[in-house]
């Protein structure tokens, strides 16, 4: 199968996924029957409720409402936030830079650290330092991001007073949230790199490279690691979802003004158009990220039958 066909197929799948998400997001509001009751305040009069229902189009047939929702979606219009009275998509996009900064900082340090730990663990497999690497990876995956975040605040902000407890500002505001958010990911990368490098080091081509008299450093870096990268890249897309979910909670803990905080506030305020916008936007980012992973995967290993 050609690369072009592969990409087209994946694009089609991505569109399908987004369509499915849009259906779930749309119809979940009707789980209790009438979305109007979810959105108006409890002390609204019957006339007010009726007026709101009509204004939102909830008195139209369901298929018509969904069609309208989809048509708006194609144009990037997901209705207005009930609370802020602004287009929901614009509110989400306004919060995007903050989340992007946090997520990339977390992704950057955790990938780098995960690689270093993973390589160390694989090369000195079974040694004391490998045990340390394994324990670090295990505990990084075990602590929930909200608990780690709070512990970091207790130690570094409240006790030691080295760093601020939250908010956005200089680089010092970024350190704690990025550490908390990246910990899980760092563990995942460590485990993956370690496992797949151990497997690669046992292959014949590594033995050949060693028998040619290449330095161990060169054998690991140029021959084994390159092949060990493939499984690591494949699962990156899956962990990206976990990273986004973690960002949501990290933002709450550190009062970081990103999309996650917006989402939770929107849910607390029962601002459902805004919630829908956030879910769809995040699903969109996720689909695009997975597409990029697929392409990278193909480029890294041309032998793989796409």
């Amino acid at each position, binding site marked *: 199968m050609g690369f072009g066909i592969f990409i087209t197929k994946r694009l089609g*799948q991505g569109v*399908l*996924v987004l369509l*499915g*998400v849009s259906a*779930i*997001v749309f119809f*979940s*509001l009707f*789980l*209790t029957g009438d979305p109007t009751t*979810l959105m108006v305040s409890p002390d609204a009069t019957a006339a007010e409720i009726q007026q709101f229902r009509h204004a939102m189009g909830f008195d139209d047939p369901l298929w018509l409402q969904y069609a309208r929702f989809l048509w708006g979606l194609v144009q990037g219009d997901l209705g207005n936030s009930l609370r802020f009275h602004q287009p929901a998509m614009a509110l989400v996009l306004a919060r995007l830079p903050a989340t992007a900064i946090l997520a990339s900082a977390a992704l950057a340090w955790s990938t780098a650290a995960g690689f270093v730990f993973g390589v160390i663990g694989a090369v000195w497999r*079974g*040694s*004391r330092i*490998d*045990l340390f690497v*394994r324990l670090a990876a*295990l*505990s990084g*995956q*075990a*602590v*929930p*991001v*909200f*608990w780690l975040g*709070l*512990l970091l*605040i*207790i130690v570094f902000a*409240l006790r030691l007073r080295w760093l601020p407890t939250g908010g956005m500002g200089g680089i010092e505001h970024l350190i704690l949230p990025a550490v908390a958010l990246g910990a899980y990911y760092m563990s995942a990368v460590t485990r993956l790199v370690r496992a797949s490098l151990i497997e690669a080091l046992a292959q014949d081509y590594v033995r050949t490279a060693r028998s040619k008299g290449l330095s161990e450093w060169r054998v690991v870096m140029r021959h084994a690691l390159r092949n060990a990268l493939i499984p690591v890249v494949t699962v990156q897309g*899956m962990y990206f*979802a976990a990273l*986004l*979910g973690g960002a*949501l*909670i990290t933002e*709450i*803990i550190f009062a970081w003004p990103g999309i996650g905080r917006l*989402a*939770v506030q929107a*849910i*607390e305020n*029962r601002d459902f158009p805004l*919630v*829908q916008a*956030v*879910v769809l936007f*995040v*699903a969109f980012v*996720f*689909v695009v990220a*997975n597409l990029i992973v697929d392409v990278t995967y193909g480029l890294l290993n041309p032998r793989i039958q796409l």
Partner: protein
Amino acid sequence: MSLAGRWTKAADLQLGGGLLVLVLAIGLVGPVVWPLDPLAGHLADTFQPPLSAVKGVLHPLGTDQLGRDLLARIIEGVRISLSIVLVAGAISAIVGTATGVIAGYLGGWVDTVLMRLADIQLAIPFILLILLVVAVVGPSFTNLILVLGITGWAIYARVARARTLEVRELEYIEAARALALPTPRILAFHVLPNILVPQIVLLTLDLPRLIVLEASIGFLGLGIQPPTPTLGNLIGEGRSYILLADWLILYPGLVIAALVIAFNLIGDWLVKMTETRLD
């Protein structure tokens, strides 16, 4: 022999099993040996630090903002959180395995549709969707179990489908088909028993995800509502008193971490023992 050299597969099981037994004991035996009421406290006894005794009553883990005993609340929280997670995990495994077996055995358009649904399921950031649904239907015990259970089926379906594709071609299945056994019967009595082991291993490895997810929902205040304690909402409540009483955050989190480590270690051990491939 070095310390690391002795860290064998058996050690995975021993540490994991030990932690699991410990937490299960807290939940199961806890209420008997520690009979303090998790919901009742004295306002005069608020924020007692761990190991303090008030009027002859010892509070090993301290008290909270209403003077309730933290150990009693953690015991109750373990019971509630674990019940939700275990039932939800069972639902995910059953729904997902059934879907995967049907997709893999029947193939064709059924397979295509079900697997595309799994893709969609995996493409949605779970937590947001779950928060949305819980906000709409309300955070009851049953609703939480259903939402967590139903949203977790996709990975079970993928693994079950892959194994079914292999099993389907084996001779004894062919023999069953040649005997004209009804398809549901072939699936239930001939295919299912042969793919059960990987599904159980998968469940063990999936439980940590559910534990953290349930705790996160509780932490955000969108799960089971206080005063009923869960491991997540205990930390969520404690967060407001982070300056006064950090033990309210510390201990429930330790229990969550112990549970996650336990299931991860046992799951890793099971993978090696049963030589399961989960790709």
